[in-house]
């Protein structure tokens, strides 16, 4: 019996534990509950993925109502893959979190923090698993609202302001997405994703459908932090508590990318988006400009969290490049880069959290010479940085290699060259930090600092080790992404 209920348990477990944390009230208890549940959720997504690999997509009807009348949960290759890494990152970051949470969040808010964390996880997983367009919006709001709350919990006075800016832009994005949903509903009379895909009139591009597509694309672009509408992201990532940044940076924008892939490839189909509309060339341009502008900005940052935040905007560009190529290889590269970047950025933000705990600062100048007093943490930064640059034997290389070969195969020569050049920018901003850590006389703080506690180093190294492991062993990263891409393109045509 329990096996057939797994898809909904994935959502219900964190959803019910969040209010339980508030109701029971104990800080320690809330943490243990949240940790247990996030581990269970990871187990469930593993089990679901295994079942999908064995016997194909899983469908679950909420309340016993058949689709398209009721809400349906669908686990297929793509959603299973995204849920797998989202739940994995959530569990690991939570295992890493307690020390930084004690430092960065006022004691009276700890239970609320763990409740919001679980709600955010619920929202992110819900967006992946649901097969209902309006449900996507509901879960999008659950994850966004809880992340605004988590960002504003930090002790710094700038955190609430950063959260408010994110709230305003995020709400604009969500509203745009909702307007799009409304228009699609008007044209098709259904909200079930599968049903919409069959009923949507695409021939000749009716104006309502064009407007709906435009609204949804722009709404999601804001949520994904694509270059010209990214301005909420740097402040939100910089002023949020370290654990929150690590979790959100690794998962939240990726899930929006997932929704965007569903929208373009499943609902509106690539023929509509790329042939009838010039979305592919637009996305390629925005992605490339974004990669260069954001990477260049990253080079000039003195705050390491902000540096990584700008780098995140650039990395979103690589995912969009893959998606906009429209071929199976390109899509595979885009999907696998979601996974790879989640590991790299999650790991690097966890490293930043270690420094924030021991040095009480994320300013680069305070990190001078910390390589001598915190050797393990510094090595983790170097290893994670190699992944971000895309050096062979790291995950970064896998996705960039796939992107590059696709660009060459489809004769996008400019894209291929610009991609290689942009990697050099990543070398510059990563090396700046490495140089500060290893080749400078220790600053006062760094000389007095001790190595980060094992409770944080171990989870950090688990993630960093994963970036190396999946750089060599790609059966379940690029392999799964490839099957997801094949399924998407097969269904679209």
């Amino acid at each position, binding site marked *: 019996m329990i096996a057939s*209920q797994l898809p909904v348990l994935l959502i219900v477990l964190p959803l*019910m534990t969040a209010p339980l944390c508030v109701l029971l009230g104990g800080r320690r208890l809330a943490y243990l509950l949240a940790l247990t549940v996030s581990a269970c959720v990871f187990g469930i997504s593993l089990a679901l993925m295994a079942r999908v690999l064995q016997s194909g997509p899983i469908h679950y009807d909420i309340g016993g109502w058949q689709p398209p009348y009721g809400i349906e949960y669908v686990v297929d290759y793509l959603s299973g893959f995204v849920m797998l890494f989202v739940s994995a990152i959530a569990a690991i970051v939570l295992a890493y979190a307690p020390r930084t949470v004690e430092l960065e969040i006022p004691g009276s808010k700890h239970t609320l923090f763990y409740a919001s964390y679980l709600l955010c996880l619920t929202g992110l997983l819900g967006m992946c698993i649901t097969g209902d367009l309006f449900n996507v919006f509901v879960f999008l709001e659950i994850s966004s609202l809880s992340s605004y709350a988590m960002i504003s919990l930090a002790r710094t006075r700038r955190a609430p302001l950063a959260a408010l800016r994110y709230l305003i832009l995020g709400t604009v994005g969500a509203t745009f997405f909702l307007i799009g949903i409304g228009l699609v509903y008007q044209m098709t009379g259904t909200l079930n994703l599968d049903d919409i895909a069959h009923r949507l009139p695409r021939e000749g591009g009716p104006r309502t459908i064009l407007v709906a597509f435009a609204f949804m694309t722009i709404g999601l672009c804001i949520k994904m932090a694509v270059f010209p509408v990214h301005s909420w992201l740097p402040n939100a990532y910089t002023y949020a508590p370290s654990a929150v940044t690590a979790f959100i940076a690794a998962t939240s924008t990726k899930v929006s990318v997932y929704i965007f892939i569903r929208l373009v490839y499943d609902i509106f189909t690539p023929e509509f988006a790329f042939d009838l509309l010039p979305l592919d060339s637009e996305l390629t341009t925005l992605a490339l400009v974004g990669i260069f502008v954001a990477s260049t900005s990253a080079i000039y940052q003195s705050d390491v969290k902000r540096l990584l935040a700008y780098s995140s905007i650039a990395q979103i560009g690589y995912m969009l490049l893959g998606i906009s190529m429209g071929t199976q290889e390109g899509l595979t590269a885009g999907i696998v880069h979601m996974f790879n970047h989640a590991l790299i950025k999650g790991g690097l933000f966890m490293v930043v959290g270690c420094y924030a705990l021991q040095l009480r600062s994320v300013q680069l100048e305070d990190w001078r010479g910390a390589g001598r007093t915190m050797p393990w943490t510094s090595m983790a930064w170097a290893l994670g940085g190699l992944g971000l640059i895309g050096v062979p034997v790291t995950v970064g290389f896998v996705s960039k290699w796939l992107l590059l070969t696709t660009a060459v195969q489809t004769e996008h020569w400019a894209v291929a060259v610009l991609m290689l050049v942009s990697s050099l920018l990543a070398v510059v901003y990563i090396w700046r930090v490495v140089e500060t850590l290893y080749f400078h006389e220790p600053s006062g703080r760094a000389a007095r600092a001790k190595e980060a506690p094992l409770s944080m180093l171990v989870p950090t190294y688990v993630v960093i080790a994963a970036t190396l492991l999946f750089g060599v062993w790609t059966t379940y990263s690029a392999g799964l992404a490839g099957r997801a891409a094949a399924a998407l393109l097969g269904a679209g045509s």
Partner: protein
Amino acid sequence: MSMNTFPIIRVVTKLLIPYILLFALYVQFHGDYGPGGGFQAGVILAAALTLYGLVFGLEAAKRVAPPKLMQRLMALGVLIYAGTGVATMLMGGNFLDYNHLTHDVWPQVLPSGQHLGIFLVELGVGVTVTAVMTMIFYTFAGRQHIT
């Protein structure tokens, strides 16, 4: 200064509040048959509390509905809703499949099946909405940390 010093307002408020509460309960329990339901009922219930707070002062309202309790109630409502879903799962159905809540205990009086499911779910919504609306009022009225 609260409006406690105006006798007419005080008396009228005291007269009105019971009827507002009654109307909230009507909307809550009649939601199964006609317009209404947990959200509307919760807002009406919170309106009664808000009126009480406006007239007799924030402190008086907080004695009636302590913020700590409201915070717990917010969570409790969600648990009632999701708990109904879990109950249907334990009884062998899908999440929120109310058909599995069918029973034969006192059939004329107690709701059963789909009816019982909606009743429980709306109860959860009512509890959470009441608590949230009240907390929003406290937050704006207090303009400081309330817990």
